[in-house]
């Protein structure tokens, strides 16, 4: 299997992340901060990304670390119980959108 160069993939995602964070493009431009895709995350990780249970709280995470984690689940380099099964089809745009959204929320220590 030919794997894309990970550095190139990461650069692509971070470029999109920057665009998302600047407010251009994606659902944010039209639908406020909420989107269908981020709704997929909170059902397990808790409302506003604040978890009550064993799933980690994802609100307030550093956007780069968040995108890195999703990329690692997607390419299989990070082991998981279920995340690997969920992020496989996410596009770079999806990952950037999700990372930017939760990074902007207040986290557990705020």
């Amino acid at each position, binding site marked *: 299997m030919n794997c894309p160069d990970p550095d190139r993939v990461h650069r692509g995602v971070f*470029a999109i992340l920057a665009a998302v964070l600047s407010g251009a493009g994606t659902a944010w431009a039209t639908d406020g901060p909420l989107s269908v895709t981020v709704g*997929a995350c909170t059902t397990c990780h808790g*409302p506003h990304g604040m978890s009550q249970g064993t799933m980690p709280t994802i609100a307030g995470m550093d956007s*780069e670390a968040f995108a890195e984690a999703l990329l690692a689940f997607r390419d299989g380099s990070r082991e998981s119980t279920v995340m690997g099964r969920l992020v496989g*089809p996410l596009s770079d745009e999806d990952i950037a959108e999700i990372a930017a959204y939760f990074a902007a929320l207040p986290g557990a220590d705020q």
Partner: protein
Amino acid sequence: MTRTVLTRRQALGLAGAALTAPILATPARARADAHVVVIGGGFGGTAAARAMRRIMPEVAVTLVTDAPDFATCPFSNLVIGSLWDMSEIRFSYDALHNDGVKVRVDQAVALDPASRTVTLHSGDRLSYDRAIVSPGIDFRYDALPGVGAEVADRLPHAWKAGAQTILLRDQIRSMPQGGTVIIAPPDNPFRCPPGPYERASLIASYLSRHNPAAKIIIVDGKDKFSKQGLFMEGWQALYPGMIEFVPFSDHGGLKAIDADARRIETYFGDFKGDVINLIPPQQAAAIVLDAGLGGSGLWCEIDGLTFEAREAAHVHVIGDAAIVGDMPKSGFAAATQGKACAHAVAALLEGREPQRGILMNTCYSLVGPEYGISVAGVYRSAPDTNRLASLPGSGGTSAAGDLPELRRDEADYARGWYANLTQELFGA
């Protein structure tokens, strides 16, 4: 297409500078006088009503539900297995009131897409601009031989949580030593495909502690079931010899049901139980089919981008009552759909194109209190047909094999999943 490729540091710098701007952006203005009526106070309806208010705080949302509180089917098998109390799976609608959702405790008896009205049992009529309909399932007792709905008083379905859950739990508790529990699940499609097998597991968990010579026989309406390999592995590991699975092709179908004698007659033999959990075949709730939204079938066909019924405009159907592409009939799926549907309704009220976002389903099942397994799926509506199709390279079940740490982790995640899901639906 040209795109400036930023270094991570540049991306982060932008992140720091611009993080708050999009969050503070307000949604486009909705029609201030719009009224959205949500039918059903379960996973789909509750998620849709709350999301609607968050996305468009200026829109009036009325949720019609037939009881003042809600008992969840997910985790009701823990109550049946005497591992949890009923109070742990029961939730009030207080948080919805606080969100500004008008909760009407009444029964929605009719939906008229032509006049855009919902008629309640009290006689009141509600007019809507958009209706979000998530009423769940009804049972098809006419598809069972010689019994009606009253059979559930003796052979509980426990497939809508509440009094039925307690009835089945209590029957199992008072069963004689060495007795037999029969679980009779229907053929597909039905609510919660892994549910009957989690139920067998958690009943076995109870029996192995209190009635170790007892047996469980699953007389199934189909030959294969969800997460079958994982369940059977777990049964062998935790309850060897206690659970017997009889596929449809080994019994040929139900021929007669004797509720007094607690006996099921099939085409290839009889099964005698001390407790019979008879889970009838299912269809969309009557309000959906009576409104003509099922066409000639038993479930409502919808558009996978907007959830609008194929048979009626301004009516959006979600959850177990609908055929939602490849998504299973699960509470989690209904909650996911409820949120996505609220986005679609908001877009339509504002004359915008709805987002074609990602939807996910994750269903955990407990084989034992410390033994969890899961199935997951990821879906997006296809641009040509709007069908919510399972995306390649995603989904599937937990890894098979002797993996005790994974099973323990997934049992923990199952509890976290339930806590977060119910918090999103009913929490403050």
